[in-house]
């Protein structure tokens, strides 16, 4: 029996090691065939031909490699447009590029060499996988959740359809929060904070009590939204804080209706807005009008005097009730309270020219 060539031996070793019994069987079969051939030659008594290695091309059986399994086409290719999305994506999960049917791009490219200058698509896009997606909360999902929860809910009370109705019936809004802490103890300190919110116009207050209320409450009042917020976290329990905050509201409300003795010592600098009647402007105006009256009586000039002044100017209140003076008063108060803008300044100018009877051909 011809010795198996070295190559063939090593091949056999390899296959034995790899454990590919089928290939081994084939190999063994081919060697046996060769042996048979050689055997038949000898039997005939023919001269053994010397086979020069490498002269004739040796047919080596190529071991067919396992076909790499082709990946199936992505799922979204075969999705119908009218499918139920809630079945495709029932819960929150990582972004799966193959299951998302719409094109989406996310990422930053620094220059045109990176990804040919285009923002990366969804295949293997880490930027799309990292953040939370809300594909499990589409309107279809929400509808399904709502339908499932409906049997546990009661009907919305009648008479509370609009926001105004809610505010009318429930003017005070209490705000609390519950927390669950991720630690050996579940408790969170912030849970004891309680606050109530209400609109100041819902409270019954007159001018003085409203002003006092705002002064007492301080920062808690927001003049832009007319809201008062009482917040507390000084008690250990939430219920205690809520009680305290309700107490605060009650106390401040009733206090603001009281009038203390020291409030009469309020000075001009303490005034919350400008009142013409208590300021120097009124005094100046009265004395000015009196002077003008005297001058007019001394040397009356037709059409240039202040005709609207009454004959008796001793009475201060009478002067202040005049229409021109009232117009002037309103103009000055507006100037201080609303601030200076074109409108208020023009009103003031008109009031003064009317008051002092100043006329110009070029006046607007």
């Amino acid at each position: 029996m011809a010795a198996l060539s070295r190559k063939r031996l090593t091949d056999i070793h390899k296959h034995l090691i790899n454990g590919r019994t089928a290939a081994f069987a084939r190999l063994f079969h081919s060697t046996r065939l060769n042996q048979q051939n050689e055997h038949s030659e000898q039997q005939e008594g023919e001269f053994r031909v010397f086979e020069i290695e490498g002269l004739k091309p040796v047919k080596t059986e190529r071991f067919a490699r396992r076909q790499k399994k082709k990946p199936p086409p992505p799922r979204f290719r075969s999705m119908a447009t009218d499918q139920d999305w809630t079945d495709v994506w029932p819960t929150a999960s990582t972004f799966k590029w193959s299951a998302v049917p719409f094109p989406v791009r996310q990422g930053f490219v620094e220059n045109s060499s990176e990804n040919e200058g285009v923002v990366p698509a969804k295949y293997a896009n880490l930027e799309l996988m990292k953040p939370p997606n809300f594909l499990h909360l589409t309107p279809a999902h929400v509808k399904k959740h709502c339908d499932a929860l409906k049997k546990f809910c009661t009907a919305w009370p009648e008479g509370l359809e609009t926001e105004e109705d809610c505010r009318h019936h429930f003017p005070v809004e209490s705000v609390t929060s519950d927390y669950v802490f991720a630690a050996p103890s579940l408790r969170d300190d912030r849970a004891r904070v309680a606050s109530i919110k209400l609109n100041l116009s819902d409270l019954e207050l007159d001018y003085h009590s409203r002003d006092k209320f705002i002064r007492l409450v301080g920062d808690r009042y927001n003049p832009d939204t007319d809201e008062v917020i009482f917040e507390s976290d000084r008690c250990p329990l939430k219920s205690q804080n809520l009680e305290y905050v309700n107490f605060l509201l009650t106390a401040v409300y009733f206090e603001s209706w009281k009038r203390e003795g020291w409030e009469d010592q309020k000075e001009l600098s303490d005034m919350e807005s400008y009142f013409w009647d208590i300021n120097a402007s009124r005094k100046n105006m009265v004395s000015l009008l009196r002077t003008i009256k005297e001058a007019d009586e001394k040397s009356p000039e037709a059409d240039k005097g202040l005709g609207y002044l009454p004959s008796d100017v001793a009475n201060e209140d009478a002067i202040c009730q005049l229409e021109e003076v009232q117009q002037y008063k309103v103009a000055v108060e507006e100037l201080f309270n609303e601030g200076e803008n074109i409108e208020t300044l023009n009103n003031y100018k008109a009031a003064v020219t009317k008051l002092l009877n100043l006329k110009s051909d070029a006046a607007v």
Partner: protein
Amino acid sequence: MRERLVRVAGGMMKSLSRTAYLCVANDVKQGSSRCLSSVAEPKQSNLRQVFRTSEDDPRAHTLDHVGLFYKIPETEVNSMFKGCIHPWHLRLMNTFNEHCLMVRKPSVEVNGYLKNMNFNHPVPKFVYYGRRGAGKVCSLLHTMHFCARNDWIMVHVPWAGQWVRGWNKEVAESTHKPGRFDLPMDAAEWLSHFRIQNQNKLKDLKTTSEYIWTKREKADVGTPLDEIINFGLNRFKFSSDCVGVLLKELRLQAAEKGFKVLVAINSVNSFFVPWSKENTLKNSEKKQVLPHEVSLVHNFKKMLSPTWNNGAVVCTVNEGSNDQSLREDYTPQYLLGQEGFEWFDPFVPILVPEYSSTEALSCLSYYIDRNWIQNEHGRTEEGMKEIMFVSNRNPFNLYKVCSSL
């Protein structure tokens, strides 16, 4: 000049950019020497009619004259307007070889009020307010011109802020009243300014009461006001008191003698708002002197009160005169403050707005006529539109933009 350019262009090795520039230079030079390029010439005659008015008398200016420039004669500029015009404006006027002012609506309005007012009533007060560079001082000048032509007496303060700033000034204790402070140099300066402005009108005015300066010096009843001014200029120590005497006499005699007094104060808000602590006036004890403690200011404030008649008070409020932190707004009540408003109340606030488009065009045409805008593109309609846009039609900004063109 041209020969030199040609020689340089002759045989020298140089780049074409240089020749290109030289050719351009020649064209532009020709253009400017003719005062116009050939393109602009047909427009010029139209523009000339638009921006000037031959009406020199401010008494005759009406709304029809708004936006037009009128000329102020040299004599009046040297007498009445001396020290009143901004230095940059005066320099411009000197370069143009004429002193022209634009007629604008705010001053025409105030002149109308002054024409129709009742002189028996206490003095009416007018306040010009507006953005920086809008033309408040020029409006004041126009009103002053109007009053001067009507033979009013001018009591004009060029800039009230000067009396409130520190600037290492000499501050003396008041000779008249303890607790007040004098500014000898400023008072003397004002006295000479007053005299120049009212050159021929002070002849008949005499004092009505006696004023004792020191044990040996006194002014008797019947001293002409001219002498009091002289006394103030010679004896700096008493200059502030002289100012006070002068103002008091004017107030008392205005109605009796029949002459009218115009009190024109530029940036009157300096009277009421204290200046910053670093730069302020300091008395001998290095303590801050507030405006109302300065005797000059005190005397002028009396002119603002409605205790006298036969006159008018026209002022401007200037945001630049206030301290840095109090310059947010340009409106009168903000700038005067609470105290100032109460003192001034009731007054007529007159807004001095930026130029309207016609006024701005008129101003630019005037500049072109005076050869001030040299840039070729600036003389075209498109260029003028661009200038108006860039400066937002603010008179001072317009001047600034055109100064580099």
